[in-house]
């Protein structure tokens, strides 16, 4: 159990440049403290996120992922975030198929003005994933080898 | 009417510091020091009480008339300057003079009441001003004694300085004139915070509790700043700090033994005038330590 307590989830956040990244900056400007488990990757738009990026991140050891962009209707590129969401609907079964509990991937809309929401969201994601425990499927894959079958978390 | 101009300064003691009054040692020492180093003071003939806080607190016109009568008397005697060592008096006289200057109607009413004209042109000064204007060189010249290690907190109170726009004397928040005089006597000035705070003034009889609180604050501050004695230039401040000091101590559980000396007494000591001739025996809190410092 002590092992459990020590678990610190590793979170990757894919953020759009215009809204959420700026929102995260604002949290900084406002000196709003949050859990340090997150590593941010900035993209012009969440619509430009290839779902394979997410799978790759899990493969590299992430325990959870946040994708966050502008509010609907506020997208810097008009409709990018909408596409992101739609694509997510298409790829969700794919991720589940890959043995990834969809709770490990969260989406949110955080505008450049919502520093506090960023803090709330990121803390939420960290807590959720902490509760889910480490995502070990891919690590096992890497370390043990291909002969071990991967048990699906979602089952 | 032809008035003969005088070089002497009109002396307005006011009720509190005349002989046989509660603060007579102030008057005694002022006159004694003036005898020694000038300037020549001459009591204004038949002066009356300025009405002090009771008059201005309840009747502006009366307060003004009572004060102006004294100024008009001085005017008629040809004085160009009046010394009023009691700050209450000097403040009342100056404010009244200012009020009639600003208010033509008031001036008429007052002249009618006192049945004398009031032409202005007489300057009213307080005791610190007198010393600063006339006596600093004389003190330096005629000083005979230098106290050993005597730390003095200069306490101005309110009325010497306020209202500043009318009195136009020293810096109302950080005055220094008393310290300059203290240092001229050879004593050391201590830096302390409450030197312009109010002591409760005229509430000594009616709201003794208020006076006790305010004077306690002042005594504590001076004591904490390391003062051996407090110098004052006001009979009310003196009365409140000196006469009530024991009671303050009792009320606030702190024993004070801080002599309260008039600035004129300090000058007198430096000039080596006898302590008794300065009235130093009339204090409630023993002044021996101060007298001894000049030995």
């Amino acid at each position: 159990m002590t092992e459990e307590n020590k678990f610190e989830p590793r979170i990757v956040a894919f953020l759009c440049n215009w809204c959420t990244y700026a929102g995260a900056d604002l949290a900084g400007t406002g000196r709003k403290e949050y859990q340090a488990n997150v590593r941010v990757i900035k993209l012009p738009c969440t619509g430009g996120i290839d779902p394979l990026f997410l799978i790759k991140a899990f493969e590299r050891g992430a325990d959870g992922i946040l994708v966050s962009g502008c509010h609907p209707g506020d997208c810097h590129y008009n409709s990018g975030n909408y596409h992101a969401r739609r694509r997510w609907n298409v790829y969700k079964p794919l991720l589940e198929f890959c043995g990834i509990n969809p709770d490990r991937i969260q989406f949110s809309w955080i505008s450049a003005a919502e520093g506090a929401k960023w803090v709330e969201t990121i803390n939420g994601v960290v807590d959720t994933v902490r509760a889910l425990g480490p995502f070990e499927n891919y690590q096992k894959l890497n370390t043990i080898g291909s002969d071990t079958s991967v048990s699906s978390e979602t089952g | 009417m032809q008035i003969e101009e005088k070089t002497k300064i009109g002396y307005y003691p006011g009720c509190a510091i005349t002989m046989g009054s509660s603060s007579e040692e102030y008057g005694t020492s002022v006159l004694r020091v003036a005898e020694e180093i000038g300037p020549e003071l001459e009591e204004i003939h038949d002066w009356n009480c300025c009405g002090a806080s009771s008059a201005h607190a309840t009747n502006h016109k009366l307060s003004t008339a009572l004060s102006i009568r004294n100024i008009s008397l001085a005017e008629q005697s040809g004085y160009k300057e009046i010394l009023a060592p009691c700050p209450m008096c000097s403040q009342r006289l100056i404010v009244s003079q200012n009020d009639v200057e600003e208010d033509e109607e008031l001036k008429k009413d007052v002249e009618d009441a006192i049945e004398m004209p009031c032409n202005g042109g007489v300057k009213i000064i307080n005791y610190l001003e007198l010393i600063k204007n006339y006596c600093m060189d004389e003190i330096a010249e005629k000083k005979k004694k230098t106290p050993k290690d005597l730390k003095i907190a200069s306490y101005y109170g309110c009325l010497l300085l306020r209202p500043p726009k009318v009195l136009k004397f020293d810096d109302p928040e950080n005055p220094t004139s008393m310290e300059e005089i203290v240092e001229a006597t050879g004593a050391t000035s201590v830096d302390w915070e409450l030197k312009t705070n109010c002591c409760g003034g005229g509430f000594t009889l009616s709201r003794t509790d208020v006076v006790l609180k305010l004077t306690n604050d002042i005594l504590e501050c001076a004591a904490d700043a390391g003062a051996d004695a407090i110098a004052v230039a006001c009979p009310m401040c003196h009365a409140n700090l000196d006469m009530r000091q024991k009671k303050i101590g009792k009320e606030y559980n702190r024993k004070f033994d801080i002599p309260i000396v008039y600035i004129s007494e300090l000058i007198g000591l430096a000039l080596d005038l006898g302590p008794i001739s300065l009235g130093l025996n009339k204090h409630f809190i023993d002044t021996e330590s101060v007298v001894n410092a000049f030995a």
Partner: protein
Amino acid sequence: MKIKITTKELKSDFAEEVKKRSGIDVKKCYQCGKCTAGCPVAYEMDYMPNQIIRFVQIGARREALTSRTIWLCASCITCTTRCPKEVKIAELMDVLREMSLEEGLANPLEKNITTFHEAFLNSVKKHGRISEIGMIQEYKMKRPKTAMQDLLVGPQMLSKGKLSFLPHNIKGKNAIKKIFEKCK
């Protein structure tokens, strides 16, 4: 504390009346509270000095004239000295006291103070100068509850020759009486 202020009060020209009597324009006060902050007696007052000004501003005549504050004001003029808008608060207190007496509104809880002023002025009226002992006597008689106060101080003062039994009478005693008459 709750006061109800209605159009009648708000429209009354109390402020104008005060201005006429004293030249003090309370409208200038923007209620910053600096006067109160520096007032040595504020801790004892029922209304803060700035509230007294506020009462005058909004025509709350009764509240101002029946307050204990106006009597507790020690006339130290700290407030006037520091007011950023150059409102003469201390001087305003004078006017309010005057009006309060005229209208018989002086707060009975501060009777000590009003009595003291009376006794003081009576002495001046009688003699032209203060007879301290006479004044104290009058005051103590009128405020018997205070009679026991300062029992220790009085004799000490006498022994030090600081209280004389003889009043200082001035020559122009009558002139002083006249002044009192004319300045009623």
